[in-house]
């Protein structure tokens, strides 16, 4: 099994999101960066799959030179190879991102059996890169997956659906996008970290292309920040709480 995981470098936003004065990006002067949560789980899932079935995990990111940090995070967990599609820092839309991933998947020989992506990137939330990649490769694709079983080249994948579950079955090669909750990602080991530090990273510089969905500006939505009315302290507040629930019409 050759598995490719696509991870995106995103800012770790703490107490609130701050936008730069020109409204073009998130102010990241005070924040660190990480792999989006769904994709952390995609890395873990890929490692578990190759632990069971053999094979190797590659990780890919499209981003600035500093995105090599996120590749090394994945290498420390057990990915074997890493590819950086280096950008000049401009934001890439989902159509161009998918095209660059497809070009890399085609470049790789003998070829991947499985591509794992996140259901949506934590920052832009476009919900589509995986599906566009699958179409270009002519592979089946399922999204939002929270359970994967593979045997004899057949994938059984399940996801949540309106409080229940739905299941899919299809053959490899395939593209699967996963959601947090599919597994609990492991922590890197010390030898893993050391190996990651020394690992070579394959690099390419795909040309930027404009998407026909163009961001004009970013802003934080205006919400009325109310400070809560304190009903009371400890169990003494319970009568007031019961009266409130009654008033809100949620007591049967």
């Amino acid at each position, binding site marked *: 099994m050759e598995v490719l995981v696509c991870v995106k470098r995103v800012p770790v936003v703490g107490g609130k999101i701050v936008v730069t004065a020109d409204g073009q990006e998130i102010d990241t002067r005070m924040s660190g960066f990480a792999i989006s949560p769904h994709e952390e789980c995609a890395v873990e899932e890929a490692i578990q799959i190759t632990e069971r079935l053999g094979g190797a995990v590659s990780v890919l990111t499209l981003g600035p030179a500093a995105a090599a940090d996120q590749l090394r995070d994945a290498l420390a967990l057990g990915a074997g190879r890493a590819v950086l599609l280096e950008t000049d820092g401009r934001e890439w839309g989902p159509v161009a991102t998918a095209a660059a991933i497809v070009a890399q998947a085609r470049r790789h020989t003998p070829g991947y059996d499985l591509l794992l992506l996140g259901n949506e990137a934590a920052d832009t939330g476009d919900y589509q890169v995986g599906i566009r990649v699958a179409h270009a490769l002519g592979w089946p694709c399922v999204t939002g997956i929270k359970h994967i079983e593979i045997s004899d080249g057949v994938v059984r994948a399940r996801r949540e659906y309106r409080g229940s579950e739905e299941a899919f079955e299809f053959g490899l090669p395939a593209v699967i996008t996963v959601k947090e909750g599919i597994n609990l990602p492991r922590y890197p080991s010390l030898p893993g970290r050391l190996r990651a530090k020394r690992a070579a990273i394959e690099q390419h510089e795909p040309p930027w292309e404009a998407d026909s969905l163009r961001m004009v500006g970013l802003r934080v939505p205006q919400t009325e*920040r109310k*400070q809560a009315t*304190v009903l009371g302290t400890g169990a003494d507040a319970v*009568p007031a709480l019961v009266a409130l629930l009654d008033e809100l019409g949620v007591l049967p």
Partner: protein
Amino acid sequence: MTVLCLVEQDGGAVTDASLRALTFARSLATDAPDAVLFGEAAGVPAQTLASYGVSGAHVVEPGQLAGYAPLAWARVLAALISETGASAVVAAATDRGNEVMAHLGALTGLPMAASCVSAAPAGPSGTGQWRLVRQRWAGLLLEDAVLDAAPALLTVAIDAVQPVPADTPATLAVQPCQPELADGDLTVRATESAGQSGGISLASARVVVGGGRGVGGPDGFAPLEELAALLGGVVGVSRVVTSEGWRPHSQQVGQTGTKITPELYLACGISGAIQHIAGCASAKHIVAVNKDPGAPILAHAEYAVIGDLHEVIPALVTAIRARGVST
């Protein structure tokens, strides 16, 4: 100017998310929107559709295409775009809505804008330019954008639009639709697995009792479960709780969990990190139980009880039971 709207159904009724998408679709053009449904033509929720101002319903019957197959559904929409000359195709930003619209984008080579809050044609109609506002970071950030594409493919952020029937109901014409599928369109098709809960889902519950790190461990949830059951609701949790393995991820509220829209969200032992708020900001009323009067959740809640949830929640359960309420 035709606007097509993918309508999802559950047990024969239009889902709440699709009612919101229909409301949004109606705002895009003066002409009434057309709905696209998958199911028996005889079971089309005609009255609801008409009351939401839908004049045409394109229905794909199970005999033609049974079950949920995202690529096949997108193929149907692609054919309807050609047939109707639609200027926009809209779906709710649900798992299925986003998935089908992304397939449609890939099939047609068009861009797809997910989680839109508003959209309006920019410039003279028919030029295919749109001004959009869409959510990023699960709604913590808004993006103003320009979309250059005809038709516009949009999914509608569920928490951004209220479901509102039209001022005047439309007269609905139901048209059966014959899909022409391509090889491989049915390779991925869902089988609904049996034996699942079928109970109240987190996304649609009227009451959600939230538990965070303050619950202390997997054994601390019993009083919260009991309270939720008394109120006819469900338990929701923070990411700390699922990453500690105390509760399954299906109960997580937030950016990478579920977005909830209950009447009441009672957040117990939850600090109120923005990624958690992204999932519960659309609750009608938020009440926090927290031992820290400085917890950020208090800036999002309407009411709060300051104290130990291990005292407050059991006492609340006792008080509600004393009113004769039982599970």
